[in-house]
């Protein structure tokens, strides 16, 4: 609720997720939630707190540790009239259920000539920075964006966490909502009403005149910090939070590059084969004549995420990595 001064309400990222799930459960009688430890325990990160109490065990299910079973359950239930909200605790567990995701969920409608509809919302947590090592820290959005039939979104703020989950649940397609574990405690303005953040629409989070940084997830915040540092060297960087990775808002990115003439794509995922390559290719295809420099890319080194905090912090890209890359791209000294 807004306080007496009518200041907009603040909510943490984790509570915004919680509110979004409640909203969806209220709005959609055919929605149910299923996942490991989401009922009694409220989820390992707490974003299901109180949801089973509110909606009951008929609509909120603690499942066995069976990721293939969970996603398959969602496919079958969605194809026959339900609107499942599935939980995959860590995106790293995608490996356990990739057949259901890649070969069933993504393709069923197409293979069946458009006769099947799969309104599945799959929530999952990504990102490094918590010393959880190689199997609990990955950013695997590129795996998913390579699969026609899926939509993939990534929330960088509490408001978008709520809006994207609601949008995903209202969509008649399978949508994977990737959330960031290092942002869970982030506070931000979150409207109280029910709203959908449009899927397929990027958000210009910092307008700028002569440099474009396209990014998503936790790196949005790093890019904003980097932009502030770059401002001291006379660069006025525009930061675009892509938000929706599939479909991707090429239009907003190209319009920005036409204005700024220089661009970078920054993500936390491994740089090689990451989605940054696709975005860079799109920019050079559509705005080649507008570019004053090759499109730069920032991403993690070609290695799994290491455990030791000293290795992990050197591994994960951040504002400094972005600034250093901009400087080397533009040959700025100092």
């Amino acid at each position: 609720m807004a306080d007496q001064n009518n200041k907009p309400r603040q909510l943490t990222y984790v509570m915004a997720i919680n509110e979004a799930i409640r909203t969806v459960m209220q709005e959609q009688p055919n929605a149910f939630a299923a996942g490991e430890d989401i009922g009694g325990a409220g989820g390992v990160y707490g974003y299901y707190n109180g949801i089973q109490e509110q909606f009951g065990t008929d609509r909120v299910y603690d499942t066995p540790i069976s990721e293939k079973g969970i996603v398959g359950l969602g496919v079958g239930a969605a194809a026959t009239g339900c609107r499942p909200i599935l939980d995959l605790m860590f995106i790293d567990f995608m490996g356990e259920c990739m057949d259901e995701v890649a070969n069933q969920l993504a393709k069923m409608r197409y293979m069946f000539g458009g006769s099947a509809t799969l309104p599945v919302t799959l929530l999952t947590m990504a990102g490094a920075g918590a010393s959880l090592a190689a199997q609990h820290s990955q950013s695997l959005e590129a795996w998913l964006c390579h699969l026609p039939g899926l939509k993939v979104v990534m929330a960088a703020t509490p408001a978008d966490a709520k809006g994207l989950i609601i949008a995903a649940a209202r969509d008649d397609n399978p949508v994977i909502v990737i959330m960031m574990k290092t942002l869970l405690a982030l506070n931000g303005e979150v409207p109280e009403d029910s709203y959908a953040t449009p899927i397929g629409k990027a958000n210009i989070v910092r307008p700028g005149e002569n440099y474009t940084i396209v990014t998503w997830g936790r790196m949005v915040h790093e890019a904003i910090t980097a932009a502030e540092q770059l401002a001291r060297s006379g660069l006025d960087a525009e930061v675009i939070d892509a938000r929706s990775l599939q479909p991707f808002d090429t239009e907003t990115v190209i319009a920005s590059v036409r204005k700024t003439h220089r661009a970078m794509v920054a993500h936390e995922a491994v740089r090689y084969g990451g989605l940054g390559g696709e975005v860079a290719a799109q920019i050079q295809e559509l705005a080649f004549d507008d570019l004053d420099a090759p499109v730069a890319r920032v991403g993690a080194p070609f290695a799994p995420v290491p455990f030791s905090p000293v290795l992990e912090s050197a591994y994960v890209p951040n504002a400094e990595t972005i600034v250093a890359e901009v400087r080397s791209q533009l040959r700025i000294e100092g």
Partner: protein
Amino acid sequence: MFVTVELTNDVLKDMHRCMVQIRRFEETAGKLMEDGKIPGALHLYVGEEAIASGVMAHLSKEDQITSTHRGHGHLIAKGGEFDRMFAELFGKATGYCKGKGGSMHISNMDLGMLGANGIVGGGPPIATGAAFSNKFRKTDNVACCFFGDGASNEGSLHEAANMAALFKLPVVFVCENNGFGEYTSQANHQAIVDVADRAQGYGMPGVIVDGMDAVAVFEGAREAIARARAGDGPTLLECKTYRFYDHVGVRGMGLSYRSDEEVEFWKKRDPIDQFEAKLREQNIMAEAEIQAVYEQVAAEIEAAVQFAEESPMPDPSTITEDVYA
């Protein structure tokens, strides 16, 4: 031909020592985590020590194990050194995995410890592969696969167990049934009470033992391992146990998903207390000898923690090393 290990007094003393080592290691690790010295997630094995020590009493370095996210006890029982273990938990260059793995991936190939695993259900197919290799290379080594009741619901166990039985592979599937997968009780994650019931469906024996009794585990494992070494195929050995601590970290009591009475009930069956009572009763170890074990273990742990604390952090240049051979 292979020999089976008999339950001599020396073996009993080794098993006791092993349980004490695991208990003290885990207690210390828990404290260090609470003091902020160990980063990341720690899944501690306190309460379940009888299983690792009872099974590992039968294994040599050449036999293999696969472990779980709750893996310190398995590595200790397989011969893991405290200093390199603590160093790994601290993320130091001198750790078993050079600081790259941490608690959830702690491993040592020289000891036949094919890794703790961050993926629930990650172990069974790998143990089956090691067992295949043992047979293929014509050794009489055995692979033991530890997994939880929660993990028994992953498809990976089903595929591995079926294949192991079909190919008559020398593997023992050791289910550590502590009654919970994270915060979900067994009754809320599967419709059966005994995971061992599944064995029949795979065509292998299913055996249930008291996982709080190291001797019972030892006897169950002896038969299963002998069968595997003899080329008669796998066994599913279910050990009924309980974890005294929370799923992650230390706090054991006052948790919403289980009652303190339940915890108290199981703590009365503490595997080490029970075992020591028997050792005293049967005059196998006198009180002074038991106390000496604790003192030795405490000294070893103190030295190991110091080693870990004084060890260097890995150099960031090593990030891209060890990705490929």
